[in-house]
């Protein structure tokens, strides 16, 4: 067999199947002449090597320059990838066990986080000069003030939609005035806090996890620890305090805009004047509901920040772990918010509901 021309990846790969078939057909040939080959890279060499059955043919004319390529292949020998053991039934059990243990570890870390925060709070009560006030205010601005436009937009639209759909039904029964009860109670007590929490979990919770995670990747957290600065005091506490304080205010803001949206829609659709709506609102919705709504906001804010920091501090220094933890943070905080909301609903079932 006499070979010539370029035997390189870019030339061979498009016609790989064809060439391999030809080589296989010729593989029995005892004499090979590679003197005419102008270029040969490891791809071309490998094709030949495999056609030869992983050894040199008995008669081989090989230019000096190409010698090293085949030497490397000969050195490689029969190296193969380590084999991963097959998946067995016991592995499934072990997998389940690992999942459960993982959950237990999560809970353990969360308790440690809470405990450490409490200890640090006690320390801060005695050492007032160490309060991370700058960080708190910066975080408050980031999670509170900067979230206002999106909260307003979403709140307004939800208010309009709820009002529009309810009005269609209520008008059929001639019960127009109940729009105030539906909107007022629904938004202030339930929808406002949950809606804002979901927004904040997606917006600020994910940002907190990602920030802590990247600080982990770039060893900034280790740098803090080395300087004797507690990560809980400097990083976690400001986020938790800021979100706990900002969430009730955001809830108030979001609920107000949602009710405003509902009011506008009711005005257009049911000809209900703003004056009437605003006068009827306090009669339809006892003030206790506002307190419940704001309390929910604070609790949800606390939980979102804690969950976000928990996952942020678990990030390992690689990008895969960062993305997995950020996803887990958002999913977990939204789930926790909805679970705790159910608990709230049961605990406050006797409070603030006018028609029972």
């Amino acid at each position, binding site marked *: 067999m006499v070979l010539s021309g370029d035997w390189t990846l870019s030339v061979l790969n498009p016609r790989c199947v064809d060439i391999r078939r030809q080589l296989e057909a010729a593989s029995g040939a005892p004499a090979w002449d590679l003197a005419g080959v102008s270029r040969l890279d490891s791809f071309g060499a*490998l094709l030949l090597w495999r056609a030869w059955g992983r050894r040199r043919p008995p008669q081989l004319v090989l230019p000096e320059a190409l010698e090293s390529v085949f030497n490397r292949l000969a050195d490689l020998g029969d190296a193969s990838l380590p084999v991963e053991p097959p998946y067995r039934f016991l592995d499934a059990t072990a997998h389940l066990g690992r999942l459960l243990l993982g959950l237990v570890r999560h809970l353990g870390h969360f308790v440690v986080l809470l405990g450490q925060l409490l200890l640090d709070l006690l320390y801060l009560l005695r050492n007032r000069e160490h309060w991370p006030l700058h960080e708190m205010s910066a975080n408050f601005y980031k999670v509170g003030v900067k979230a206002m436009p999106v909260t307003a937009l979403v709140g307004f639209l939800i208010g309009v939609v709820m009002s529009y759909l309810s009005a269609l039904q209520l008008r059929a029964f001639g019960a127009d005035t109940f729009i105030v009860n539906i909107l007022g109670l629904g938004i202030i007590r339930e929808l406002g806090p949950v809606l804002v929490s979901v927004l904040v979990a997606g917006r600020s919770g994910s940002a907190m996890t990602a920030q802590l995670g990247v600080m982990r990747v770039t060893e900034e957290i280790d740098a803090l620890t080395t300087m004797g600065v507690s990560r809980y005091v400097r990083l976690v506490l400001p986020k938790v305090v800021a979100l706990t304080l900002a969430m009730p205010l955001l809830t108030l803001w979001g609920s107000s805009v949602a009710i405003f949206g509902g009011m506008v829609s009711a005005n257009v659709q049911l000809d209900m004047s703003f004056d009437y709506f605003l006068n009827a609102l306090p009669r339809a919705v006892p003030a206790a509901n506002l307190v419940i709504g704001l309390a929910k906001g604070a609790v949800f804010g606390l939980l979102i920040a804690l969950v976000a920091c928990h996952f942020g501090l678990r990030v390992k*220094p690689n990008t895969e772990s960062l993305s997995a933890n950020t996803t887990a943070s958002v999913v977990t905080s939204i789930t926790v918010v909805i679970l705790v909301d159910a608990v709230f609903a049961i605990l406050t079932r006797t409070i603030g509901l006018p028609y029972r």
Partner: protein
Amino acid sequence: MNAATNKVPVELKGLSTRFGATWVHRNIDLAVPVGEVVALVGGSGTGKTTLLRQMVGLLQPAEGEVRLFGEPLFAGSRAEQLARRRRFGMLFQQGALFSALNVFANVAFPLREFGVRDETMLRDLVLLKLAMVELGPEVALRMPAELSGGMIKRVALARALALEPELLLLDEPTAGLDPDRSAGFVRLIRALQKALGLTVILVTHDLDTLAALATRVAVLSEGRILAFAPLDEIMTVQDPFIERFFHSERSQAALARGRSEV
């Protein structure tokens, strides 16, 4: 050798770089001949890495142009640009391995992108590349997070060499390696450069590495190329920067060490 490989692998023509109001480079001309190992040296902030990133098109110069293998990097159709990009490989300072993929998949990535579909062929090629950087098949299934710094560099080198490039760009190849490993890595690069006939451009602070690898040195200072010549000639140039950089006691010792490794 066909006609294409005879062209100058990298050529900078009247290249200027500006960050905000400050000019980092002013009217730089540089032509790297085939088969040379060129080291870019210069003080901190003289834009060595910037220059390297401009060569591969990660940054655009404010003025002037970069020519790879005789053509501008961004000339021609998408397919032509891609074909040009496959003729060089780059080793990033931190390795830049894809952390979601294991070692095998990292090295196989450029090959798969290129269109190698045959899995047994792919396996042999990847193992060959790993063997070239002196890594055994047992590391193939590990994730980048489980590798040491030196191994990350080796795997990244195997990935950069996957498509048999003619030009290899190295950004601080020995940064973060201990002296023993960095000497080993330098030897490895040198052996591969000779075996594969690569043209290499590297940025380094490390005079050991410089003396052991570079056949030519380009000295960057005050936004221009002060000198571009073999190391011995550079040493004779009269200039305060070169004086400080190459003639201090520490530098002399490092250079001597590097030379003895060749």
